[in-house]
């Protein structure tokens, strides 16, 4: 495959997105590192190429979503549809068999009714990729976060769990601890009842000072007084994460679960409306797989509907296409404003490979 064929494949998808009403946009290749670091944390350094520009530390564009969202939040009015095609750069792929630079084609839709917008976006990707007969996965991070918000526990614990929704290992550790399934180490119990917890602890050094330590001890004391999250509720979270069915069956299961956990009712109703809109767009829910944990470990800014398309014959390849809803990201980047947003990307180099199977 040459760069020219990859570019032609990208142009083909871009053309399809423009035909669907999207306005083609460009973004800078050099992106301010600060924004990306604030969003993704230190992990982004393992994935993006970092360099120094006149304005300080910069990164070679690891994806288009962030600059496109910034542009829309600055200038755009809802609803708006954008399409783009261009290089992205990924350091994590620094091995002989994975390219560090490849083309990405994307479509982003801001505003509109979320269920209808989700269906429009998904149907567009579904349409252009269907000649490849890809494996399809969908999910909904919003159902999991609604379930967490509905737990019978303190706001602090909910916030800690929500902070780690995209880090399954840490999420599990926290959930087990909050459910009272992990014994409190004796050293910790002793600390929480100590009259002067800092006695003999050594000199106060560094910027994290006594006030920080005491505030955390207070938080730990409050947390120790918190009753464990009931086992039935932990069980419901597990049921959501284990869910793997066709979308219509998943919707039924989730409606049943909502009887025990009313907090997920609105999110489940949203799934129902999305499936209706998809059905109207010609995608039958009984043909659409749904996984409760899809998108948790790889798609960190998605907070609602998530989807991916993979090459059936090539499980070794990364997904051909991924996407989802990222309303919260628009709030983070929108300086006080927020708007519903959904979008996705295709990697033309991979669709070309998949087409050869």
């Amino acid at each position, binding site marked *: 495959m040459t760069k020219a064929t990859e570019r032609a494949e990208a142009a083909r998808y871009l053309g399809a997105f423009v035909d669907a009403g999207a306005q083609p946009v460009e973004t800078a290749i050099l992106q301010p590192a600060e924004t990306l670091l604030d969003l993704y*944390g230190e992990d982004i350094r*393992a994935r993006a190429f970092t360099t120094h520009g006149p304005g300080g530390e910069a990164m070679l564009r690891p994806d288009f979503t962030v600059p496109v969202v910034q542009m829309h939040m600055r200038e755009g009015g809802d609803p708006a549809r954008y399409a783009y095609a261009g290089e992205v750069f990924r350091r994590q792929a620094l*091995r002989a068999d994975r390219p560090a630079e490849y083309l990405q084609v994307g479509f982003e839709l801001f505003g509109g009714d979320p269920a209808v917008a989700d269906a429009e976006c998904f149907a567009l990707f579904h349409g252009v990729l269907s000649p490849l007969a890809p494996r399809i996965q969908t999910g909904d991070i919003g159902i999991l976060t609604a379930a967490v918000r509905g737990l019978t526990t303190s706001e602090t614990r909910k916030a800690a769990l929500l902070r780690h929704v995209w*880090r399954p290992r*840490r999420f599990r550790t926290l959930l087990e601890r909050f459910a009272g399934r992990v014994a409190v180490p004796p050293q910790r119990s002793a600390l929480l009842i100590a009259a002067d917890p800092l006695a003999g602890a050594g000199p106060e050094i*560094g910027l994290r000072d006594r006030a*920080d330590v005491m505030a955390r001890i207070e938080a730990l004391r409050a947390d120790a007084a918190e009753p464990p999250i009931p086992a039935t509720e932990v069980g419901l979270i597990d049921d959501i994460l284990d869910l793997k069915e066709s979308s219509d069956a998943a919707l039924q299961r989730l409606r049943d679960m909502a009887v025990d956990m009313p907090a997920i009712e609105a999110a489940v109703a949203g799934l129902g409306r999305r499936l209706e809109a998809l059905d109207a767009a010609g995608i039958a829910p009984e043909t659409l797989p749904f996984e409760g944990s899809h998108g948790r470990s790889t798609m960190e800014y998605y907070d609602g509907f998530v989807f991916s398309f993979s090459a059936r014959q090539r499980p070794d390849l990364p997904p051909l296409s991924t996407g989802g809803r990222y309303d919260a990201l628009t709030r983070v980047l929108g300086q006080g404003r927020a708007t519903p947003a959904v979008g996705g990307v295709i990697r033309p180099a991979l669709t070309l490979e998949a087409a050869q199977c």
Partner: protein
Amino acid sequence: MLKLGVPSKGRLMEKTFDWFGARGLTMVKDGGEREYSGTVDGFDGLQLVLLSAGEIPRELAAGRIHLGVTGSDLVRDKLAHWDDQVEELAEMGFGHADLVIAVPSFWVDVDTLDDLDAAASAFRRRHGFRLRIATKYHQLVREFLTWNGVADYQLVDSQGATEGTVRHETAEAIADITSTGETLRANHLKILSDGTIHGSQATLFRARNAEWTDEDRELLARLIRKID
């Protein structure tokens, strides 16, 4: 001709020479003290290349040397997908050091990575930036913290005197090599109970990317019989 990269100075060099010597391979530096090549008595076809231990991973990855002795921590930190590039032939039993995460001893609320993560989250809220961890082992530390789901931290580069960065307020915590923990204690730092990232020791590596002729392979097989 097999090229073997060995540390060019200090205790690591002496211990390396001792280790091969104990296996009947006497290493001899060429010429005066300033020469950076040598030979091995009793083993024809093996050429010594004396290098800084920190450069040996890169030379192995580039295939400019066939074999090399260096710390397993350096290989893991400096080479992306290190095990695709080099193979561990022998752990040599010296140069022991642990790469650990350490925090001020007076952080009585922080004993584990779980605590560090919670402290980092609160720190960012109060101080407005991500909690700084000083280190020179960026890749190893980042991979470890990512795997363990720690967020809201940043790595700041420190190429020396890392233990002093907390006192000087250029970092809140550190990730550094320690053998006895004495320097950490002297600087009022403690190791997190689950904060050991890697137990390092001097290791003999084989470069997968070097050019391996049939003759080289034969020499290597003979060498391995000697050192096993």
